[in-house]
């Protein structure tokens, strides 16, 4: 099979599963490009208090003052004058699927979201272009004081709580795209889990781009109070367009004493999307946070979920999976910042490249002078499926305390013809054999996922693998 046919095979699958689009039926769309007027317009349309409007305008200045980063993937094709920064999908957000406009509901039906909600979610949210069109959490959780709303509803209905945390974990000046998000944020979730409340089933938000040349800037704040537990999952897909789209989210998480939280991303954007996301968790005493970050789609992803270990006993993990196919660059990894003594962290990164795709592991392990008796392990493995794909490793380590234990290992391997022959000799087709090697490579991560997601992940990988070996 020629390379061109292989690629076509993948495209066809993505088209059918995720790459479809609906006719544009937005209720409002700001003109293309970005300036003070558009930022003010977004704030105006959301009916925000003055402080937020000021915050946004200030953030726009910060965004303007920072250069486009050049230390990583090439972002030169991304031009803000060609992008719609705000596309409102519906007049209001639904609390039942019946409230969601028919064509939008059809999209989420096709993506299986209402069905998943019924089966195994404690709550679900759905964002379409710039805003959430649906948010709902099970009644018994609401009765326990759990808040699971769109970020706009969070600001509107819980302004004090919102204001206490917004921008504290990731300030606008953190990086250029965090500043951009701070200026034009729209959509995302606001979550609060009260002390001691353990939400056994995941909460999920699904992010969908429909319009071409759009920017999506979801902002999520999650507060897991003392001794509570939460697993939040986000999924993302989009139609394939010839023009660039931008997704630039900011996720701020606070995990208080003795709490546990896990944030899982299954990112499967179409490969005209630039995915530039900042995610950070502040983890307090004896609490733990895990990022499970799977990047399968997008043209360029730059994403390094981080954990700040603020008090003794805090534990953080980043499990990163990246899959780079033709024309894709996955610049992913993780950061662990040990601020307090007796803290532990683990970063495991697994990346797979094929058809000329590029993946990089970029990570930072930083141990502050006071963070003695901390422990950290960093493992990054890459698997190349052919000779013309590339993988790089950029592990930055800054240790300022002598009393720490740090482990680091990195491997690069290639799917061997011998492995394929061996598996095929047992009756597996070439594609099945390739998918099996890849699944095995990822197994240390997929086994961490709840059953439903590991099945979904395996299915996605099989889709990505179709016709890719040989």
């Amino acid at each position, binding site marked *: 099979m020629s390379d061109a046919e292989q690629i076509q095979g993948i495209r066809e699958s993505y088209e059918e599963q995720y790459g479809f689009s609906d006719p544009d039926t937005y209720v409002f769309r700001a003109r293309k490009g970005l300036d003070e007027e558009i930022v003010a317009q977004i704030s105006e349309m959301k009916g925000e208090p003055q402080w937020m409007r000021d915050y946004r305008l200030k953030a726009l200045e910060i965004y303007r003052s920072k250069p486009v980063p050049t230390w990583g993937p090439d972002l030169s094709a991304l031009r803000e004058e060609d992008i719609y920064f705000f596309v409102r999908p519906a007049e209001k957000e639904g609390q039942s699927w019946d409230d969601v406009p028919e064509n939008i509901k059809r999209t989420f039906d096709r993506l299986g979201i209402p069905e998943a909600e019924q089966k195994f979610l404690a709550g679900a949210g759905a964002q379409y272009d710039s805003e959430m069109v649906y948010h709902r959490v099970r009644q018994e959780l609401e009765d326990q004081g759990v808040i699971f709303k769109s970020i706009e509803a969070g600001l509107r209905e819980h302004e004090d709580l919102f204001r206490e945390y917004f921008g504290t974990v990731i300030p606008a000046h953190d990086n250029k795209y965090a500043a951009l998000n701070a200026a034009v944020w729209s959509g995302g979730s606001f979550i609060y889990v009260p002390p001691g409340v353990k939400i056994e089933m995941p909460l999920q938000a699904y992010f969908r781009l429909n319009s071409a040349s759009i920017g999506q800037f979801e902002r999520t704040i999650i507060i897991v109070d003392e001794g509570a537990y939460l697993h939040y999952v986000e999924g993302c897909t989009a139609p394939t367009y010839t023009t660039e789209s931008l997704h630039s989210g900011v996720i701020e998480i606070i995990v208080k004493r003795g709490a546990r939280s896990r944030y899982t991303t299954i990112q499967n954007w179409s490969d005209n999307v630039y995915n530039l996301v900042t995610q950070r968790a502040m983890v307090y005493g004896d609490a733990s946070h895990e990022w499970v970050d799977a990047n399968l789609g997008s043209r360029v992803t730059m994403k390094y979920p981080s954990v700040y270990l603020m008090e003794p006993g805090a534990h953080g993990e980043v499990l990163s999976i990246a899959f780079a196919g033709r024309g894709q660059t996955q610049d992913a990894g993780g950061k662990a910042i040990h601020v307090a003594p007796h803290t532990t962290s683990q970063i495991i990164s697994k990346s797979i490249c094929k058809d000329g795709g590029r993946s990089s592991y970029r990570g930072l392990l930083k141990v502050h002078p006071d963070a003695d008796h901390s422990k950290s392990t960093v493992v990054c493995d890459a698997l190349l499926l052919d000779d013309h794909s590339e993988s790089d490793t950029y592990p930055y380590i800054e240790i300022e305390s002598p009393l720490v234990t740090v482990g680091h290992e990195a491997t690069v391997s290639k799917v061997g013809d011998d492995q394929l022959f061996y598996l095929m000799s047992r*009756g597996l087709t*070439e594609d*099945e054999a390739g998918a099996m090697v890849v699944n095995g490579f990822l197994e240390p991560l997929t086994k961490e996922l709840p059953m439903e997601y590991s099945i979904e992940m395996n299915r996605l990988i099989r889709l990505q693998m179709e016709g890719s070996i040989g």
Partner: protein
Amino acid sequence: MGAALEIRNLHVSVEGQPILRGVNLTVQQGEVHALMGPNGSGKSTLANTLMGHPAYEITAGQLIFDGVDLLELETDERSRLGLFMAFQYPVAIPGVTVANFLRNAINARRRAENPEDKGIPIPAFRKLMTEKMDMIQMDHSFAGRYLNEGFSGGEKKRAEILQMAVLEPRIAVMDETDSGLDIDALRIVAEGVGRLSGPDLGVLVITHYQRILNYIQPQFVHIMLEGQIVESGGPELALHLEEHGYDWLREKQNGTGEA
């Protein structure tokens, strides 16, 4: 009468270098054949060629299995037709458990028969696997280990026998299954093969030692030298070889004026 594997005038080259030079051999279901020969005589080339390894180029000859032209089939299709090869050096597949692998192999067969097939139900699979493990005296904990990763030489060969037991081939080619095994491991592996053999299984045991043939008793013994089968006979041929080595055959070859 069962299926037959027929090798007719097979010539094979590797990287342009001729290795097999006209091999003829027929193995029927229910028969046990031994193929012996010194290192480099082409035994493993034959095994890999039968299974369709892409590095082996067939320059002449035919391979027929149950009336089907194997040369038209990919490796996986040959497997699903009922051909099996126990590898001399089984390959590690990190992250894939023995159980997961076996279930996928079974399901690949079922899907080939019926694209709508939903796969073997988990309880039925568990039962099948534990039965087969018991049959070859394998600890059940094996099922949860990653395939061939960190396995000892003996464990790898037993895992091959387990796969054979589960996949129930019609013809099995055992490529130097005895190499690198101590005598106890050899006995366990060979007994496993013994339990599997019967009227539905044809076996081609490839070896350069006679000792495995004390446990797997062949009806037919063939000797390969320099890419050809130069002598065939009954079990007594193996014993003769054990006593006299290969030199008498080489002399015989040279005597016929080939050199």
